[in-house]
């Protein structure tokens, strides 16, 4: 299967191993990602609030939720469309348990009770979704998780006592602690950056841990893993639970950044866009979802102007997204990360040949 090929661990850095000790080699192997990290740390110094919130914030949050999809799809071979819904559950729970403009529904508990509880509930939901679909494979997983996601959207839309129906919740403030107002653009940016970087590193770590390796074994040949004595279903469900933690944190950040949540935060279009993000970025490496999210956010923000500039209707942005997705699926199944890797190998090959 193509997925299996793409997830083999190759560092994204181009640099060849150099002399100069363990640390130097490590730095040069990960030069690109370290540069990106440094750039993200100093980004608030050079960018205005619009870029912090609308571009960087959205990219990292959508990237995190897509990362949970990438973990399941790339390492587990289970393309789950319920990840946006897990994030939505966490977002809704933080609005219900915490503070919102609806005193009738919300419990007004402090954030340090509401947020962990929201994560626990969302992870329970994600694990349930996993338990339902873990016994099936491939396209069946897509069907079942899509059905789950759509059911949740209609539930949120129709249910007034808990989800406040069509309107959802507004004015959900980000918390205020250690003397910092975390809803302000710069603190919020750093909070999102912290969690995004953390989830990236943790996913990378887990993918190389015994659990992650077993999961990749389950992806490539569940029968053989079963024969060796691994519990295939348990590994899959555990993967869903782990992915749900990342998606839940992403969902809470989404609500704090956006200050509102409604059924249309989790509707089918959003669920599908998340898959588009993950697939366009590439299911082969944890950086893929963030790249996909960046492309998506840039398109969403600037496509209107760009389309108008070339004389087309700016409202056809969704068609543009769909066509871009089709092109990627048809011509580069492993997304932008796959394109990048192929380019690196080609450059490496020509360099090697000329050097010889």
């Amino acid at each position: 299967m193509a997925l299996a090929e793409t997830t083999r661990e190759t560092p994204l850095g181009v640099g060849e191993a150099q002399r100069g000790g363990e640390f130097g080699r490590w730095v040069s192997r990960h030069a690109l990602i370290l540069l990106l990290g440094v750039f993200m740390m100093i980004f608030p110094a050079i960018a205005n609030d619009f870029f912090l919130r609308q571009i960087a914030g959205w990219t990292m949050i959508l990237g995190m939720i897509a990362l949970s999809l990438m973990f399941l799809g790339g390492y587990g071979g289970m393309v789950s469309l319920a990840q946006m819904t897990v994030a939505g559950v966490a977002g809704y729970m933080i609005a219900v348990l915490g503070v919102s403009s609806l005193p009738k529904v919300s419990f007004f508990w402090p954030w340090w009770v509401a947020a962990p509880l929201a994560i626990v509930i969302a992870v329970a939901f994600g694990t349930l979704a996993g338990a339902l679909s873990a016994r099936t494979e491939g396209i069946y997983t897509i069907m079942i998780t899509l059905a789950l996601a759509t059911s949740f959207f209609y539930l949120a839309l129709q249910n007034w006592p808990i989800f406040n129906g069509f309107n959802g919740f507004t004015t959900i403030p980000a918390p205020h602690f250690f003397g910092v107002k975390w809803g302000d653009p710069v603190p919020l940016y750093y909070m999102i950056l912290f969690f995004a970087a953390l989830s990236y590193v943790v996913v990378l770590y887990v993918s190389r841990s015994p659990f992650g390796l077993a999961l990749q074994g389950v992806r490539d040949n569940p029968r053989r893993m079963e024969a060796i004595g691994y519990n295939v279903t348990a590994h899959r469900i555990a993967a869903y639970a782990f992915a749900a933690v990342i998606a839940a944190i992403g969902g809470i950040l989404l609500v704090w950044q956006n200050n509102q949540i409604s059924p249309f935060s989790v509707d089918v279009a959003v669920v599908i866009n998340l898959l588009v993000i993950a697939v366009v970025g590439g299911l082969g490496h944890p950086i893929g979802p963030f790249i996909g999210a960046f492309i998506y956010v840039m398109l969403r923000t600037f496509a209107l102007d760009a389309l108008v500039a070339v004389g087309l209707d700016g409202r056809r942005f969704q068609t543009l997204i769909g066509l871009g997705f089709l092109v990627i699926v048809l011509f580069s199944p492993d997304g932008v990360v796959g394109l990048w890797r192929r380019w690196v190998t080609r450059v490496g090959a020509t360099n090697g040949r000329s050097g010889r």
Partner: protein
Amino acid sequence: MATIFDNEQRTETATGGDAFGRWIGRHPVWALIIAVAVIFVLWLVLAPWPAGFEQVFGKKLIFINALFNGITLGGLYFLVAAGFTLIFGLMRNVNLAHGSLYLFGGYMGYEATQWTGSWLFSYVIAFLSCAVVGVAMQFFIFRRMEGQDLRQTLVTLGLSIVFSDLMVWVWGGNAIQIDTPDYLDGPVGMPIVVFVKSNGEAFYLHYPAVRLVIFAAAVVIGVGMWLALNRTRIGVMIRAGVDDRDMLSVLGYRVQLLFVVVFAFGAGLAGMAGIVGGTFQSLSLGEDSHFLLASLVVVIVGGMGSIPGAAIGALIIALSEQIGTVYFQNYSTVLSFLIMVIVLALRPQGLLGRR
């Protein structure tokens, strides 16, 4: 592997009516429970409810309406899901653009009624236009990625994004309703007593004729599909293709042609269902995902690739939706969701599905 037909039919033809008697002999308790349930449902439908019963469960009229709405909506769900499950059974292609085909068929039918004024003729237009789109999808895209289930599914997802946006472009975001033709407009009396007035006069149920006619048409189409699959040559080819398409093509049958025909038929069914949906309810932005969800849940519950499964699943889901909206307003979707969860937990392949 899922199939379009199931084993039960074979046993039925072999042993005739005995099978039923033997089943009762083997499961007397279940037979009793089912018999009691059937009698209870018949009583619920046919008899006027006693006053005490109405106080607890609400008016009989409401229940009967929900029941009839559920059954007729089941007919609509079956039309959409049958094409979906047929395409899936033969080509292993989860066509996530099926909801878009439904909506497209509805819009084309609307245009046809606007132009020609004929409601029946619009079905032809909707069937043909969706079939053409289906043929194009199969011929230009899916043929090139045969056997890559996941990639095909992703492509259908991409297509559904593009289609739904283009349809918003052409027909706008407002809801469109297709007018019921005059000869089917209005209610008809049914031999079901809803309540008895104090002077002893019985009040009978009146139900929209168009919904009953459409349900009858759905049943006819379902039986027709079953007959076509089980009694005709092309049906034999399709069933053989479901079981082993490589072998079928080795035997010299033109599998690609078969695929195109089945895709066209499934897409055309979805298109015709679009008109039905436009007449029952309305056509608008978001209906495509509503009916995609409906067909997904129906085939998950009924069994993927099974036509009788689609019929049973459609009935169960539509009934639970309608009864749910009447009796547990805020949680109606949870009901169909729960049914799906229970079926998946007990029978992951669906009620009539085969591994």
